[in-house]
């Protein structure tokens, strides 16, 4: 017995020494080439041309799939699969010159036919593209030669290069497009290695990548839905980075810890208390204005976001050109809110507030409900999972109020859509928006952006609450991660470990 015990101990010690040697040996070799990123939501599938969920773009945008153009970390438009483009005098014809030697992950060659296929598919009548509006101005897409594509527009649209940089406008191949939801085949620096549902998505380096080689060999997106677990995973080193950290109350702890870099940047997330304008009592502008007066943004940001988040007064983010500060339009004034409700004959309002899962919505909703009760509106909170929210609220428009963050950039178009979920139908606004889209004069465009924001605020369509902060927390030895989120993305092309 004794001898056997000794044998075990000796063997264990030997194994320990070997593994310790291995462990100690590793860091001397080279900097790490893998990364584990924490993401809050699992993508429903991996095809950005078939789903609006930001979680899709957060995994695949510019990693797996690329467009003719791309939107960079500062929100600017950069060439991607198109090296350059020319615009005709009248602003209606764009000629894109494509990059040579680009291959899809399955080995097929990228050329002008793929571009025509992708854009025609996105704007077809039966298209399931989540952003069909982006392609609406396109009249025709023609293949000039394998390296050149000519896009003719119905009317001038200065937004085209920016719009073609969206995740919904990425270029896919006719051979593989149908299976992109589960087996994405793109042109990017990474390709899908495995997707374990409910746990992680792993990408590996594409060695045939056309562009500058990327430093990372492997990137794992680990799905961690719970704020407490996110905190623990970072602290324990199970994840290297959380680009959108969900628990603002924990930020001071990470800031005090030298192992981590904390960057509080901007997103395009316009967080709104959306009201169903098509339904009583929200079809009455006095009710909507009353609710706007009832909301105390400062208290909301302090209570739900622990102070992180800039107040906004219309559907536009402060860091974009053309922003007009309208946060003072409906100052917090419970008395005025009550008076307006009385005037509208809506004194004993009883409404439901639907809340999707993110913490900004659940926590924000609790604070908002309390603020609305304060002016005599009785609020019932109805929590929903995303799938249910997308069905009930977004598609069926069966709701009174909800809290959600609109993360798409420059999406003033949603207020010009008759069928959009908050049911704002205003011909004046639509005419203004059409003028904005058609305009190619920069000054006129900026002026119109201001008018559009003012029109929305004046109509009190929704209560615009705050700009969702991008609280990024990652290992201090990592560099190259985006500090802001101009579009939903975790572009890993420039990410590497410091040696």
């Amino acid at each position: 017995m004794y001898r056997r015990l000794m044998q075990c101990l000796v063997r264990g010690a030997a194994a320990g020494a070997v593994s310790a040697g291995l462990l100690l040996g590793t860091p001397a070799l080279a900097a790490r080439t893998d990364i584990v990123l924490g993401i809050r939501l699992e993508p429903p599938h991996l095809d950005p041309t078939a789903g609006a969920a930001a979680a899709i773009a957060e995994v695949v945008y510019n990693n797996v799939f690329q467009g003719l153009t791309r939107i960079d970390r500062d929100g600017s438009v950069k060439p991607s699969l198109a090296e350059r483009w020319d615009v005709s005098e009248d602003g209606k014809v764009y000629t894109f010159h494509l990059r040579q030697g680009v291959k899809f992950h399955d080995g097929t060659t990228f050329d002008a036919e793929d571009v025509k296929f992708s854009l025609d598919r996105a704007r077809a009548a039966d298209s399931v593209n989540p952003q069909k509006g982006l392609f609406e101005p396109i009249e025709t897409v023609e293949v000039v030669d394998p390296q050149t594509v000519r896009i003719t527009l119905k009317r001038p649209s200065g937004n085209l290069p920016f719009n073609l940089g969206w995740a919904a406008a990425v270029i896919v191949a006719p051979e593989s497009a149908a299976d992109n939801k589960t087996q994405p085949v793109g042109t990017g620096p990474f390709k899908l290695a495995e997707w374990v549902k409910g746990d992680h998505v792993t990408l590996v380096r594409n060695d045939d990548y056309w562009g500058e080689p990327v430093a990372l060999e492997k990137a794992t997106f680990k799905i961690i839905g719970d704020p407490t677990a996110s905190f623990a995973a970072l602290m324990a080193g199970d994840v290297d980075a959380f680009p959108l950290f969900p628990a603002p109350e924990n930020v001071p702890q990470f800031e005090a810890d030298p192992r981590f870099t904390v960057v509080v940047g901007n997103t395009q997330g316009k967080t709104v208390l959306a009201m169903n304008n098509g339904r009583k009592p929200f079809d009455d502008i006095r009710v909507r204005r009353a609710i706007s007066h009832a909301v105390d943004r400062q208290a909301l940001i302090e209570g739900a976001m622990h102070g992180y988040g800039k107040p906004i007064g219309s559907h536009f983010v402060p860091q974009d050109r053309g922003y007009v500060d309208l946060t003072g339009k409906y100052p917090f004034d419970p008395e005025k809110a009550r008076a307006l409700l009385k005037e509208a004959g809506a004194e004993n309002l009883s409404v439901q507030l639907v809340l999707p899962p993110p913490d900004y919505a659940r926590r924000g909703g609790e604070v908002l409900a309390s603020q609305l009760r304060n002016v005599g509106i009785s609020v019932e909170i109805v929590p929903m999972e995303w799938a249910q929210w997308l069905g009930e609220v977004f598609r069926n428009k069966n709701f009174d109020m909800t809290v959600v963050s609109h993360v798409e950039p420059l999406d003033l178009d949603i207020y010009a859509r008759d069928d959009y979920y908050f049911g704002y139908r205003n011909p004046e606004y639509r005419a203004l928006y059409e003028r904005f889209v058609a305009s190619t004069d920069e000054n006129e465009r900026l002026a119109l952006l201001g008018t559009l924001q003012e029109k929305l605020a004046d109509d009190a369509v929704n209560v615009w609450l705050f700009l969702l902060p991008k609280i990024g927390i990652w290992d201090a030895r990592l560099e190259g991660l985006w500090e802001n989120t101009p579009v939903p993305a975790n572009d890993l092309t420039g990410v590497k470990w410091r040696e």
Partner: protein
Amino acid sequence: MSAVVAGRQGLAARALGHPSFLVGAAISLVVAATALLSFVWTPHDPTVLDIGRKLQPLSAAHWLGTDQYGRDVLSMIMGGAVTSMAVSFVAVGIGLGLGVPLGLLAAGRRGPVGEAVMRANDFVFAFPALVMAIMLRDIFGPGALNAMVAIGIFNVPVFARLAYGAALPLWTREFVMAARVAGKGRGRITLEHILPNMLSLIIVQATIQLSLGVLAEAALSYVGLGVQPPAPSWGRMLNEAQTLMAIAPRLALVPGLAIVVTVMGLNLLGDGLRDLLDPRLARER
């Protein structure tokens, strides 16, 4: 006759001499009294958010401090006691109301009917309250009603099995046979002889199920399937306090302790009642 009287007199005396019964009863009374008191008075309104006073430490104005929204923690604990008690009492009511008759029916009938009833119970028993609550969410939506029904359904087979098990041996006892010979029907015998003789068992089990109900309610609220804000709930307080552990650990400790103490109190009470009410255990002393 004289033996029964002696037993009754002994009961009060033995109760006073039974420490765990006394402690359990005292704790349960305090929790119940707190819940009742909160209907007429709490230090502050537990549903009112006052962001300007968030995360305040213990003070004369806020005995247990305030939470991340500036709500008074003591008031929330008091309000949470109501939620806890209401949900577990209704759930035990559902379990008693459905389970005991089913168990008695199965024991009285036996044969295929009894067999069918008990196997159906086994089937329901396979679903824990949490799974039940998730399944029922689509019908009721998350809320107090969902929690009550889910925990209640979970309680049904517990009481059905207890009643069945207790009733079976009683049916073979002499006084039951005498009643049958006298011409009483099954239903009447069940009501007049079987049920009264198992009442103490049911009371004890009900107390234990109350404590399980408190736990289950906290668990359901913790995962968001229980009562919805603004109604205070210990489980949700725990959930919300998780990420604040480093800043304000008391926000998790206070509701956690409330749950522990309440569950422990009800369990002690149940154990004590078992000792006091079960004649066999009483004789062994």
